Structure formats: C-alpha cells, structure tokens
C-alpha cells in the first residue's frame, strides 16, 4: 500500500488552505509550493513547510510541471495535491509524478485524458447509453460546423474539446454568424489550452446545470454524494451553488446520479470527480456535459449536507485505502448554498479589483462556513484569479438556508477592494431565488439587468437592504 506522509500542495489561495487542513486532519505533513508573490500568504503560514517554486507569473510557477514535481522531490514529499485549476487536470503532471515516484492525488493520467477530452468523454457517455446533447464530434472546419448546426438547429453552442471555464465557448444564433464564431472560438481555445479543436452542441434555452459528486477508491468502490445545482452563472462561470438540486424532479435526479456512477466506473476512476449535466427544464430530460477530474470549487456544499470530508477521502484513496463509507451510509441533510466572493466590481462589468483588504470580517455562527485565504491587511495580487472566499450556509431546508445566507451576507464586511458581495445580497432576496425558478441564463438575462437598473435609480440599494 502506498503511504502518504508528506504532501506537496501545488496550489494557492483558499484551496491551498483547504488541502493543508485536510492533511493536518489526516496526520500528513503539508509542504506548500508558493510563487514569489505568495510567500507571505495565509496558506504559507498554515502549512508545515513552504518551498518557493518560481516567480509570481503562474506560467513559471504554479503552471510548471517541472517546478512543482521538482519541489516535491527536493522536499522529500511522497504525494502531490494539485488542488483545482492550474495543473490539476493535466495528464502530463500525473505522468511526471508517476515517473518520479510521487503519488499524484487525483485519477491516473489515462483517466484524466479520457475524461477531460470533452469529445472523447461524450463518445464514451453515448456508448454507455447516457444521454448526450445533440451535436457533433470534433469538427474540422466551418463548413462541417454549418452542416451539424443545420441538423441540430440554431441556436448552437461551439465548445472547445479541451475546454473549461467558458473559454473557447460561443453561442451562435444564426448560420451567418457561424464562420466568424468558429474562427474566434478556435483561436481562443488554441490560446487557452493549446488545442483549437471544437465541437458543436444544440443550445438548450431553459437549462439547469446539475452535477454529481463522485468518489472512487482503488478497491473498485464507486459512490456518489448526491447532486449540486450550479445554475447561477455569468459567462459560464459559476457564482452560486446549491446542494441538493432540489428543483429537479426526484426521478430525474436518481437517473442522473446513476449515469454519473456508470460513467465514472467505465473510466477506471480513482479519486474524486464531478460529472456535469444539463437538465432541460421544459422537456424534463438531462444530457451529459463533461467530467471534471479534480476536486471542485463548490465541493463544500456537498460536504455540508453529507457530513463527509471530500478532501480527506481524496487523500485516503490516493494512499490506496478504501473509502471510509459505503453508498448506503450517505445521507443528505438539509440544504447548503455557496457564494463566491470575488474581488470584482459587479456594477462595473465585473472588472477585477485587486488591492489591500483594509477590513476583512467574514460572518461566523452555526451553519456558516467561510473557506478563504484572506485576512485584514492582505494584498490581493494581480497575478491570479479573483476568488477571495466562499461563504457556505447550511440550514434544515432550503428556505432556512436562504434566510441564514441573507443575514450572513449582510454581516460579511470587506473594505479596500470591490467584491461580488453586494450582488449576492440582492440576488438572495430576489423572488425567483426563493421560488427556485432559475435557469443558467437567469443571472445574465433577468437578475443583472434588473439589479443594475435599480442601482442606478437608487444610489445605495446594498446599504438600504441591510
């Protein structure tokens, strides 16, 4: 059996804090890899040891396979946790770890490759009888895209085969727009992922984003921890996530969870993963979107309702241990909702807002959890993404969780940078949210236009809402 005694945490920000905490709980020594910009960060203080792996620019530090693997070797680590983002879904990292005798805390390289390539994963899902949205395999040019688009009907979505985070993704309304959009999406995908391959998918007008948290150990056990609803999105970026996906009919949720387990089993999966689906609200059907072969930003909402520590389980299965529970042990209690607090100005087109956090006071109390790397006086660097914290609220049912969240958001005080908190405070009070009438277009098409209009009319809606 593999042993994990020392783990290199190859990430930063709140997820570095989260992994360091899980290592502590598992009795594992944590060594944090930091760039020069993060040497004085909170996770650098929380980790047992730190090693500087390169300059602030992520390309030469957090995105360098050589930098993170050599850091693990130099510090005598037997495991490497990639967190999310950065190198977490690069099969090259898993392979380099394997060659150097370091346990990669994630699925095997081959699984990352088969699950991470969107076109290959769609093909696999289809072969397993899992519904896949109407569309194509890899398209070679705009002419082929036009043929497929004509078949499935406009509007269509162009997506990057290697994609993620909405990059290389474009909605195309008409055939006239298609050639230009293919060129734009392909070059965007090439720039972001070094892979310009695209595929075409039918665009579902009223959809919910529903995903299933799955865990698998090396003893052949695959379990799921239920679903999450991540329909609150802006430009395909999640803003708010909930567990469970209580707006979706029970029978559909059961089928979705079953499909997720079938797919993960077929991938010879070991580790934690998420299978994402779109639910067509009008037709009451679902289709497979993609597999994420890493721990996700929104994993805490599932932890809150199941009481299972996903990152600790991830460390356990990486060490060859069996999962600490069985499917029949999984219970979902109440409802949890997570808000991403980003250093962005939501009223100014979500422009990034780095700076110094003069005041940083997250709320506390029963049912409230804040995952963060921030503190009063922290300088938010310009080099990395804008996530400052995740506020997670858990209640006995959805309404209780929403009420708690409204109070917690009001109490969350940040000064020095603009944040998405004022947006969340308005969003949580919107009647559509209470009634759970949300689709993936709701934030952009319903909520934001109304909120910005109200804000223009009334100078301080965030304050008066308090």
């Amino acid at each position, binding site marked *: 059996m593999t042993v994990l005694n020392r783990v290199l945490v190859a990430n930063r920000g709140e997820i570095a804090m989260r992994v360091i905490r899980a290592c502590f709980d598992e009795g594992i020594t944590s060594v944090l890899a930091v760039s020069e910009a993060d040497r004085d960060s909170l996770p650098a203080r929380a980790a047992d040891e730190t090693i*500087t792996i390169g300059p602030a620019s992520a*390309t030469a530090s957090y995105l360098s396979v050589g930098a993170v693997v050599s850091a693990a070797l130099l510090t005598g680590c037997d495991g490497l946790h990639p967190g999310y983002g950065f190198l977490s879904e690069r099969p090259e990292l898993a392979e380099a770890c394997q060659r150097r005798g370091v346990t990669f805390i994630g699925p095997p390289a081959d699984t990352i490759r088969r699950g991470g390539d969107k076109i290959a994963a769609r093909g696999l899902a289809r072969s397993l009888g899992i519904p896949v949205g109407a569309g194509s395999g890899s398209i070679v040019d705009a002419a082929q895209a036009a043929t497929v688009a004509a078949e499935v009907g406009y509007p269509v979505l162009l997506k990057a085969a290697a994609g993620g985070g909405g990059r290389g993704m474009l909605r195309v309304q008409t055939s006239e727009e298609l050639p230009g959009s293919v060129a734009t999406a392909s070059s965007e995908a090439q720039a972001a992922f070094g892979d310009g391959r695209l595929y075409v998918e039918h665009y579902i007008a009223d959809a919910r984003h529903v995903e299933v948290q799955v865990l698998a150990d090396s003893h052949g056990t695959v379990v799921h921890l239920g679903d999450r609803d991540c329909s609150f999105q802006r430009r395909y970026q999640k803003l708010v996530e909930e567990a469970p996906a209580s707006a979706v009919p029970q029978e559909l949720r059961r089928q979705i969870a079953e499909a997720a387990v079938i797919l993960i089993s077929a991938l010879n999966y070991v580790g934690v993963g998420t299978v994402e689906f779109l639910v067509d609200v009008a037709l009451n059907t679902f289709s497979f979107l993609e597999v994420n072969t890493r721990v996700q930003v929104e994993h805490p909402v599932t932890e809150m309702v199941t009481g299972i520590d996903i990152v600790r389980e991830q460390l356990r299965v990486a060490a060859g241990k069996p999962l600490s529970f069985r499917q029949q042990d999984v219970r979902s209690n109440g409802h949890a909702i997570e808000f991403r607090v980003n250093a962005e100005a939501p009223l100014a087109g979500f422009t990034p807002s*780095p700076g110094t956090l003069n005041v940083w006071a997250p709320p506390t109390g029963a049912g409230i959890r804040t995952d963060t790397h921030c503190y009063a006086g922290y300088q938010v660097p310009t080099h990395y993404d804008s996530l400052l914290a995740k506020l997670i609220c858990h209640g006995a049912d959805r309404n209780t969780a929403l009420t708690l969240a409204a109070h917690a958001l009001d109490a969350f005080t940040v000064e020095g940078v603009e944040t998405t908190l004022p947006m969340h405070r308005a969003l949580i009070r919107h009647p559509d949210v209470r009634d759970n009438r949300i689709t993936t277009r709701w934030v952009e098409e319903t909520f934001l236009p109304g909120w910005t209009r109200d804000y223009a009319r009334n100078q301080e809606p965030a304050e008066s809402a308090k």
Partner: protein
Amino acid sequence: MTIDQDGVTRVLQAFEQEKWDEIHLVTPGVELHLVAGVVTPTTTHTSHVPGAEGADKPSSAVVTASADAPLNAPSEDPESSTGPHNVVVQGEPIDEIVAPSPGIFWRSPSPGAPPFADVGTRIEAGAVLFIVEIMKLMNTVLAPRTGVVADVLIGNGEQVERGQVLLRIRPDGA
C-alpha cells in the same frame, strides 16, 4: 525542513531525464537553480539566514544557501513606484501608451509568438499594441493613431502599475 542530499540528487536526476528547461527552488535552507545545458551557480555560500545553519549542509556544486534570495524580492510598496507619467510629453510629438490597470505586461498573443509591437514596428490606428493581464482578465490596448513604435519601456511578463508608460509611438506626420 527535510532537505537532504537525496532530495538534491532526485531533482538533478529528474531534471535531466524529464528534460525540464529551468527550475528555481528556494527553501529556508537551500536554493537550487537549474537551467538546461548550464550548470549554475558553482559556489556554496555560508548562510547567514537564521536557522539555515542547522540545515543539512548541501555538498552538491549546484546548491547554494539562499541567504540573499528573500532580500532580492521586489518592493511591494506602491509608494516606491514612480507613479503615473504624463500622457503628453512637453514639446515632443509622441504618444505615450499607459497601462489601463495594474497587472502583467504581455507583448505577444502567446508565449513564443512574435510581439504585437516592437521598436520600429509600423502600427495602424486601432491595432493591438499589448495586453495587460489582471486577475486572469486580458485587457487589450490598441493604438490611438497610426505611427512607428519608438520605445518599449518594459519587458515581457513584468508587473506594471496603472498609468505606467509602457510604449511610445511616434505618430505619422510628427
């Protein structure tokens, strides 16, 4: 910090076999800088970093104690920067192009690609000059009018402040 000779040996071996280009690792006891095809540096310093004395003495020629590394860190104090320059320079018909926000300066669309604008490049009005990346958002800066690039005042990938002059363009007819 558990850094022993074995760790250094493992890294040296991996560096060669994995064909990595460059790594630069700094721990409280050891600094290790390897560049493909180059063996640097070749000296071992006596460290004066508190606590470093207790670390295992590195014996490999490519290992140096990291006494100086933390001191070389660039100042993070915004007051120490020279601040925004005037956009118009007195008596000289030249466009000074400034950073729209703090962030990272990128001169080319992707690593290894030719720069958008180099000294001597003729630039049409509206053409892309450079990108300033802030928190993963790419802000593209365009040429205000047609001219020839006179100066590029900053290196690729360097940190810039809002308002800092990054490029100077001599407009046509000047």
